[in-house]
Structure formats: C-alpha cells, structure tokens
C-alpha cells in the first residue's frame, strides 16, 4: 500500500524524540488511525459507499506526504485566479500548510478565533482531541489517513451570538512541483449558539500536477447557529480529490452547503450530517460536470437523529465524454425522529454515449411520522428545444451549451455571494460554450 508507506514514513519522522510538535494524544490518534487502515484496508467495490468509484488509479501512485517545505513559488496572483478575493478573512494553504504571506486574518468580531490547526496544536491546547479521536477517522481509510497526516488547516471558533458579515475564505492550493504529493488539510469550524457565518472553501492547483488532496472539514453547530458553506473544487484533471465534510447540528441550527465540482481526475465529495438537535435544518446542493475521463462522486449521508428536523438535497450533474457521475444519497431517519421532513433530488443530463451516471437515492426510515421524498432522473438533450434555438439562428454548439447551462443555471443561481457567482458562471458555462461572452439568463 503506497499510501500507507507514505503515511508511515511521515509518522516515523514524528517520533516524540525527533519532533515534539505532536502532543501525546495526537500521536496516539495518528497511530490508531493507521492501525485502523491496516485492519480494514481500503474501500473496494464491495463497500456500499464506494461501489461505483474505483480507487485503483489513486492507490497506484507513489505519493509522498507534503511537508511545509514542499511549497514555494505560489504567488498571490495564482491564488486570486483560483479563488476570487471576497474581501474578508482569507486563509491560504499550499499543499495543506498555511501560507501566512498569502493570507489575511482580520475582520472578525472580538472573541471569535480565526487561526490554523497547526497554531492550535502548537499552543498545547487539547481542544482538537475530540476531533481526532472520534469518527470520521474510524469511518473509512481516507478519513483515517487524514487523521494520521493532517498537520494544518483552518480553525474557526465563533463565539456565542457572533455574526460575521463577510465570508471567510479557505483556499487550498496545491503545487506538487514534479513530486506526487498527498496533502491532508483538516479544518474545524465551531459555531457557538446563535452565531452566523459564511465559509467558502476552494480547492485548486496547477495543470499537469499529480497530487491527492485528502481533506476533512468538520463543522459543529450549537443551538441556533447558522452556517452557509460553499465548496468549490477546481483541481486540475491530473489530480485526485477526496474530501469529507462532517457536520453536527444542534437544536434549531441551520446549515447550508453548496458544492461546485469541476476538477480532478477522480473527485469524491462526501457529506455526513448528524441532525442531533430538535428542529435542525440542513440544505445541500451540488453540481458536478465530469467530462473526458473524470469521475465525480457525491456521497451523502444524513442522519435524522432528533425530532422535527428538515433536510433538503438537490444535486445536478452533466455528464460528457467518458465522464462518470455518482450520486449516492442516503437518508437515515432514526427511531423516534418524528416530524422529520426530508427530500432529496438528483437530476442528470447525459451528453455522450460513453458517459455514465450511477444514481442511488436511499431512504432508511425507522419511524412513522415522517415526510420523505426522493427522486432521480437521467435524461438526454431535448432535441426539440435544440431545434427551436437553431431555428432562431443560434448555432448548434452554442444552442447545446445554452440548454446545458440552463440546466445547471439553477445551481449557479443559488450562490448568494455575487463575486463568487460571477467567478463560477463562466467556469460552469465555459465548459459548454464556444465563446466567452457572459451569460445573464
């Protein structure tokens, strides 16, 4: 196992007598995570949640774990090109390590903390211990690898009632520079009761670089907290992207996450939400556009564990070339979670004979008083609409582009941050259009 060797090497270099940055509990957690992988191995097709996503191409690469020194010549221009500057606090990580010269840590209300995981660990605080010693590390091999290898990432603590007007940006940029790197950012966002913020995560890198981003982002929302989250995945098609978004929600909290998945050779965005407090609400959207040989996997697990919680999901995919899309959405309504309102929709547009989509909405319900709906649709281009546009003089290719764009536009439209919408519109539309003029439908 190439990845294990890489992880083992890094851990060996961190033995307490050689590097005392890791507190004892963290060292234990890392070893336990690796041991977990040793016992359980990597997921295979037999694993329900990995049925359609082959990992062989990732496991075949001799990755090396990224270190602080493995980054250097990434410029502010490169960061700005990947992630439009939204003006608020901005944490930039290169190969999973914080890049202070590219970051901005101002603009937070007093009492709230915006810093890095490395800084929290270095301070000797053990507040991260619960995050490394509970799931998700026990959940699958890649989450465990993140436990084992994560050294840095964003750390946000919003104090009770804190309201942030400006979005906080995390930019994860990779610069493998000829060496296949694995970077393992780990971000933790703790939102105390009644706090509100918007978090935007962007993942990008340099065309042609081979690397693996293996990210874990965890949110803990206390009662009445409200978080709006965006995940923009723009990795080059030579890279791999595996991410876990883990969310725990308290009473009457609200979490919204919108995912735009454009890049990477194999990309998997897994979302796990635990609705743990009465009246909590979660809304997840996603758009994925695999083409060429790309694989885009959205795996979602929503755990309705309290009464009167609401979950919404809308995922839309456009599959072209030999692109492969996976939607694997699982809703669990636990015994006693009465008053649950859960809905889930997945719509796909297939543009090529060689493209494939596997859509698998699943409901698992253990109580009676619930309202659950789910649906999946897979369709082809509407030929009549195509002719209509052509008959008005719009050339066939542009007409196709317009129809696809109209299909995904609903998702772009849901992006509430205008600068972000402006950045993403041409990226989403540009895939299907022959010209670069802006679209304002």
């Amino acid at each position: 196992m190439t990845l294990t060797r890489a992880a083992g090497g890094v851990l060996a270099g961190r033995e307490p007598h050689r590097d005392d940055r890791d507190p004892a509990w963290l060292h234990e957690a890392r070893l336990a995570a690796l041991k977990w992988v040793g016992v359980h191995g990597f997921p295979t097709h037999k694993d329900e949640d990995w049925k359609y996503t082959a990992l062989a191409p990732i496991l075949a690469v001799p990755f090396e774990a990224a270190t602080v020194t493995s980054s250097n010549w990434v410029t502010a221009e490169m960061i700005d090109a990947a992630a439009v500057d939204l003006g608020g606090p901005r944490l930039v990580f290169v190969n999973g390590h914080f890049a202070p010269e590219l970051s901005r840590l101002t603009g937070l209300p007093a009492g709230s903390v915006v810093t890095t995981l490395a800084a929290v660990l270095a301070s000797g605080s053990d507040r991260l211990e619960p995050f490394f010693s509970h799931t998700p590390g026990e959940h699958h091999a890649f989450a465990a690898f993140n436990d084992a290898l994560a050294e840095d990432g964003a750390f946000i603590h919003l104090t009770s009632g804190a309201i942030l007007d400006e979005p906080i940006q995390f930019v994860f940029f990779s610069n493998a520079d000829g060496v296949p790197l694995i970077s393992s950012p780990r971000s933790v966002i703790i939102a105390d009761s009644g706090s509100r913020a918007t978090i935007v995560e962007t993942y990008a890198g340099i065309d042609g670089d081979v690397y693996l981003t293996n990210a874990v982002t965890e949110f803990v929302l206390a009662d009445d907290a409200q978080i709006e989250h965006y995940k923009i995945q723009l990795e080059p098609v030579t890279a791999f992207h595996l991410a876990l978004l883990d969310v725990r929600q308290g009473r009457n909290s609200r979490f919204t996450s919108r995912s735009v998945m454009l890049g990477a050779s194999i990309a998997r965005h897994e979302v796990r939400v635990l609705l743990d407090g009465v009246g909590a609400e979660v809304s997840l959207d996603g758009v994925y556009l695999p083409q060429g040989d790309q694989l885009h996997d959205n795996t979602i697990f929503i755990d309705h564990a309290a009464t009167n919680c609401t979950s919404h999901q809308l995922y839309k995919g456009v599959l072209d070339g030999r692109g492969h899309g996976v939607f694997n959405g699982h809703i669990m309504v636990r015994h006693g979670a009465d008053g649950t309102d859960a809905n889930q929709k997945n719509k796909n547009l297939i543009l090529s004979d060689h493209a494939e989509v596997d859509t698998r909405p699943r409901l698992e319900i253990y109580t009676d008083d619930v309202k659950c709906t789910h649906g999946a649709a897979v369709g082809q281009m509407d030929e009549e609409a195509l002719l209509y546009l052509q008959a008005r003089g719009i050339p066939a290719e542009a007409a196709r582009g317009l129809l696809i764009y109209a299909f995904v536009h609903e998702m772009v439209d849901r992006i509430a941050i205008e600068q972000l919408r402006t950045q993403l519109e041409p990226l989403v539309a540009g895939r299907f259009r022959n010209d670069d003029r802006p679209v304002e439908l």
Partner: protein
Amino acid sequence: MLKIKELHASIEDKEILRGVNLELNAGEVHAIMGPNGSGKSTLASVLIGRDGYQVSGSVSYEGQDLLALSPEERAAAGVFLAFQHPVEIPGVGNMYFMRTALNSLRRQRGQEELDPVDFLALAQERMKLVEMDQSFMNRSVNEGFSGGEKKRNEILQMAILEPKLAILDETDSGLDIDALRIVANGVNALRSAGRSMLVITHHQRLLDYIVPDRVHVMTAGQIVRSGDKDLAVELEANGYTSVQQANAGRLAPVGVAR
C-alpha cells in the same frame, strides 16, 4: 424568392410529402390549407431543416439551395418558423434568448451585435405589436405561458428577427378570438414588400384577419388546388372532401405546372 419543386419527404419509410410544388414571390402572403395529416406541418419542418426526414426534390430560396443549409444557416438567410408548439426552455430567460438569437443572426450576417440596452429598446418597441409587457421577457422562454401567450411570443420573435420568409404553422390553433386578433394584427403589421409569408392553417378563420394573396389546398402530401382568397371561403363552406373529389379527375395537381 421561394421555389419548391417536386418536394418529397418521408419519415421512417412513410412518405408524407409526395411532390409538392409551390412558388412564392417577394412580399406575397400565401396560405396553405388542408385537413389534418395532409403534410402541412411536415412541409414547414422540412423548410426549416428539422432532422429525421429523407428528402428529395429541390427548394430554392433566393437562388440558394435551402435544403443544403443547417437550421441556423436558414435562419441567418432570413427563414423563420412560428412553431405550432413553441418549446418551453426552463432556465433561459426570454429576453436573453431573443437577444442571443438576434445577435447570432447579426454575427452570421457580418453585422454588429446589439448591446443589452439597444436590444431592450428594440424589444420594447416590438412588444407593442403583440401587446406583450416586460413581465414576459423576464420569464423563461415559454415556460408557463398560456397557448395564446406562446403564439404571441412567436410573433414577437418574428418582429425582432425580421425574417424575409416567415412560415406560420397553425399559429391560430388554440387561440381565443382576442388572442387571434392580437396575433393577426401583429402579423399584418409585419407585412411588407420585402417579406413573404407562408401561413399554414386548418381553418379559414385566420384568413379573415390575415388576408392571403394566394390559397393552396394540400391533401395527402400534395398541393391539389390553388386560388385566390375566395378559395378559403369555398373550403369553409364545402369542406376539404369537395376539393379532393373535384380534383379526382384532374391529370396533375394544380400549383406550379410540371
């Protein structure tokens, strides 16, 4: 401007057009009438280049071989079809759609594109022709439009795109009398010396409003009789069967002589 000679079209080995001959001069309005299934809409489809037909014969449009052009090239050459069933396109704004269409045509013709401000001014002026207000433009193309609104939207597109040959396919179907009047007024306002129209209809009613120069009767994939506007009145009184019977003994279909 339009010369159709011995036009045959079949779909899945079923012959629908069986030798259509028709000549339309610049500025003329011709009506094509006929019972359901006579091939009227197929003729419209073949003229705008819908896929899926095996076609033989010739269609010359302003000296060009129309059948050799793609649908968008036909549009750029000035051919327009008001669809019998206008398509709903969720997610594409009506205003954006029409501006994209006009600018596509202008680009193909080597003309400068209109910016949104100029386009808006043009659209607002043309919207008056079909008594449409701005709210239609802010909605998705035809989405949730009533039957009458869809047809008015077709005529608005015609007013904005200014074709040289407009084919109106059953534009009166599904319209109440008020909508019919609005649509017909719009069409009449667009009649000009440089614009020809082919009005396909099942009923004579539309032709009370849009008075044609010539009326052709189509049955079983051929034009079997042609005349002036009075032919429509006769058809309304006696039905299509009378034409078919009257025509049964003729040597060749009327239209353009072979």
